[in-house]
């Protein structure tokens, strides 16, 4: 039955690449053509053992200088790909052009690239990075929730949509410097009263990891409330320079 539905879907909507719209014969679940897939820069080791920043070279993974001097509140952060090219294009269309169907390729990319990491860490609960309610209304959806839904379904980890809350309306991080970003999100988050997260392992999900100040602030709140371990999972991460 499922197979029939699949071929019906292939018949009505022959698989097209989400990035370049080229037809993909014999596509699997992920509809990104081999060319576009080849251009995506996946993040691999060696990378910082904490924040996951890739080192792009030979050698072993170690803790990066920044994490050594200014240790973040989260324990680990991993991302599937470098924020650029097709991935950037998809995330843009997803968030700003409201093409919510793009959550599927983005989540699938993330799932396949970080499956090993998830099975090692075994997080017990998924928390999407929240949006302020006004921004949520404006956009009509929270991209982290939509991504988290698919990740939660794949790894069978429950997701809590209204545990981590945004208390304060912040400026968009995009236009700010590193220092301003940290100041911008300071005390922007809180937890719902019913939250039962003490002593648990949390997977914090977001679309892009830029400087890490947003997820770091979330982690600070979580840790303060007694969360045992915070892992951060994003689709992409920005590489400066």
């Amino acid at each position: 039955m499922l197979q029939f539905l699949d071929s019906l879907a292939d018949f009505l909507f022959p698989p097209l690449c989400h990035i370049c719209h080229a037809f993909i014969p014999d596509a699997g679940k992920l509809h990104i053509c081999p060319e576009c897939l080849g251009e995506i820069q996946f993040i691999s080791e060696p990378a910082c053992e904490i924040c996951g920043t890739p080192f792009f070279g030979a050698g072993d993974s170690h803790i990066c200088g920044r994490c050594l001097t200014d240790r973040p509140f989260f324990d680990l952060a991993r991302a599937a790909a470098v924020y650029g090219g097709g991935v950037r294009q998809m995330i843009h269309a997803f968030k700003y052009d409201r093409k919510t169907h793009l959550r599927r390729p983005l989540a699938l990319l993330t799932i396949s690239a970080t499956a090993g990491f998830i099975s090692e860490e075994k997080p017990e609960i998924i928390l999407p990075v929240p949006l302020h309610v006004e921004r949520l209304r404006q956009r009509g959806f929270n991209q982290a929730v939509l991504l988290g839904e698919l990740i939660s379904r794949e790894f069978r980890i429950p997701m809590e949509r209204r545990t981590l809350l945004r208390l304060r309306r912040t400026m968009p991080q995009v236009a700010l410097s590193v220092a301003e970003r940290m100041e911008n999100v300071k005390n922007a988050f809180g937890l719902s009263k019913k939250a039962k997260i003490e002593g648990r392992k949390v997977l914090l999900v977001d679309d892009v990891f830029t400087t890490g100040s947003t997820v770091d602030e979330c982690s600070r709140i979580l840790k303060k409330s007694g969360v045992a371990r915070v892992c951060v999972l994003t689709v992409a991460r920005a590489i400066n320079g």
Partner: protein
Amino acid sequence: MQRKWPLLIPLLGLVTGLTVAELYPVSTGSIHLAAILFFLVLTIRTGNRTLHTALTLLFFIVSGIYYMDSLKRGNHPEGGIQTFAGKTKMTVEGIIDSRPVTTPENVRITVKTDMTRKDGVTCHTEGKLLLFMPPGETGLGRGDRIRFSAHITIPRPFGLPGEFDYGRFLMLQGISATARVKSADEILLVRGNDRSSMLGSIDALSGRMSEWIAATLPDIEQSSVLNALLLGDQKLIPENLSKAYTRGGVNHVLSVSGFHVGIIAFFIFQMLLILFSRSEYLLLEFNLKRALLLFSMPVIILYMLLTGASPATARSVIMLGVLLMAICIERENDPLNTLLLAAMTLLIIDPAALFDISFQFSFLALWGIIVMSPLFMTPFRKIEKRWLKKLMRFLVASAAATIVMLLPALFYFNQASLIGILSNILIVPLLGYGALLTGFCALAMLYIFPPAAVLFLKTAGLITAFSNAIVLRVAEFPVATFHDATNLDMFFFILTLLSATFIQRDKLKFAALAILPLFAVIIHLHLSGPSDIGGLELSMLGVGQGESMLIRLPDGRTALLDGGGFLHESATDFGERYLAPALLKIGARRIDTMIMTHSHPDHAGGLPYIAENFEVGRFLEPASGGSGELYDSLRDILEKRGIPVQQLHAGERIELAPGVAIEILSPELGKAPSTADSDKNENSLVFRLKYGKTAALFMADAGFLAEEQIMRDRREISADLLKIGHHGSRHSTSEPFLERVNPSIAIVSAGRDNPFGLPAPETIQRLERRGIKIYRTDRNGTVTIFSDGSEWRCKSLYYDDSF
């Protein structure tokens, strides 16, 4: 075996099959279909892709042929309603099958018949009948069982070149006969809502809304345009306004299509989103955007049913549905594939829809937009500003649609306009966003808060009035006219579009795009080049009860002898509706000599339109002149256009072209202009045409009296070709006269089921006894006779003798 466009081959096959079966008499049986299907299934296992593709194509071609074939035959089952066609009135009973259509001229009701009665004998019958009645309130709706008495007729074209075949048009809709009643009182409602249906109640709703719009907005120009936008009924729009919208290239806005459906869906979606996104819970717990898109679908389907589900509307609703499905299963959507899917769906539901102009225009326009827009957008790729980019996209889509529709518009309507590219900028937002949305709100408010509904509707009316004013101004811009677009031109056009769309290799594509149009132009010019007919060609046009002949002279000049028309003066302009398209189809764009034999409406009816719209060299009429409203307007036009008028009497000789002359035999000089009908006939212009050794005698509506006079005059009247006088009346064409003329071929112009029984059997017998070959327009349609100067021979007949 995945394909980028899985439906391309099936659709191509189906369309080819349907078209071939429509143009040529081919037929096929279900056994062929089954055999191909059997082999098709076999190839799925062997996996030979080329063979599989070829068989798929073949299967759908044969399916198309099979369908058309069964449609042609299925319309004539034993005992079908059309078998009761005849000269006596029948009582017919049946159920109204679809929403009655009201136009300014009449009301049309499609009846699914099941019973007839005559002289107390009741017969079971089947098949659909189209019932006409004068405009007015009927109170009848879909599902009502009615009974009426009327003559049942099968519409059949006169047999004129380029004539619109109304019978075939109805046949494609499954309607096999027509009937007419004089007033709504002649229709007896046997049982209201005999077959109740949801569609019937939606019709009733639509009817109430339409009445409300008309009652609220007294200006018919406003209410009729809103009726078209909101309820899909374009037929109430006054003709001049409707023509202005066409000339302005914006008539597409008046037919409910993707644009309207899209705007309304978007509007509903936004409204729901604003409403539901008040709740943070809903926003977080559900994929609200996706859910709300699905919610807008039922409203869209209601809108589709309310507007009568035209092909363009159904196409858009299917495409919107498919788009929503793509969003739901989170895949990319290929608009081209969706277009193929929509076309295939509609054709499977109703294959004959392919021949519906609304279907063709809707799909061609969207196809053009999908294929051409990206090409046209290339120079504007770099535009960053969002609003500018959106504006450019809109302009480019409008330009693409206008350009793609150029040839189809010329093919169907002989005129096209490029002004649409500009007029769309104003009219689309005004009507599309403004009037449509405010009007839509008005209809919704009608059931929530009526005072607001009136306010909304008045606003929509104002916007419409503004749009109408602009359109009437824009329509003054010149339009391109071209009368020679052929089937072959259309074939090449479609082929070019197909290449632009589906050829994947760039080099091949550009080669095709360069060569195909060039090839088309060469073939077109070659086929339509000035053909030297090398003689004299006489076409007696199949104009029904009237009479009209076109003479093409050896030097390329033309003479038009009478213009056909109806038996009585009629509101329909015979010249515009029938004669002009026929002349253009034949290729006669200039009439060097226009001859009127007498001023009866069945001979002069089409002349005023030709005199006004064609280049006319001179006008000849009998010395006795003419009279009547029709004649007066003809003379006014001739005077206005400065066309020289010559009055002729017996003994005069006029040269039509070098070597071709006419000698006037009647009326005699000094015959007083007369208004009595029989006098007009006897005083009509009779002449003998001479070309080389051949001669033809044109008797107009002359009878025995005129014949005797002519014989007394002792002028040369022998002729191998005789145009029989007065449509073959028994008071014309006497034995002595035939003896003197001694023709070998006789031609008669007469309509089918002539109320006076013309041509008279006596006359036909007189001709047959002498072994004269007879051609008659009631049986042969247009008859074309050719002379090379040594003999006359029949060149072509519109119909063989089969009727």
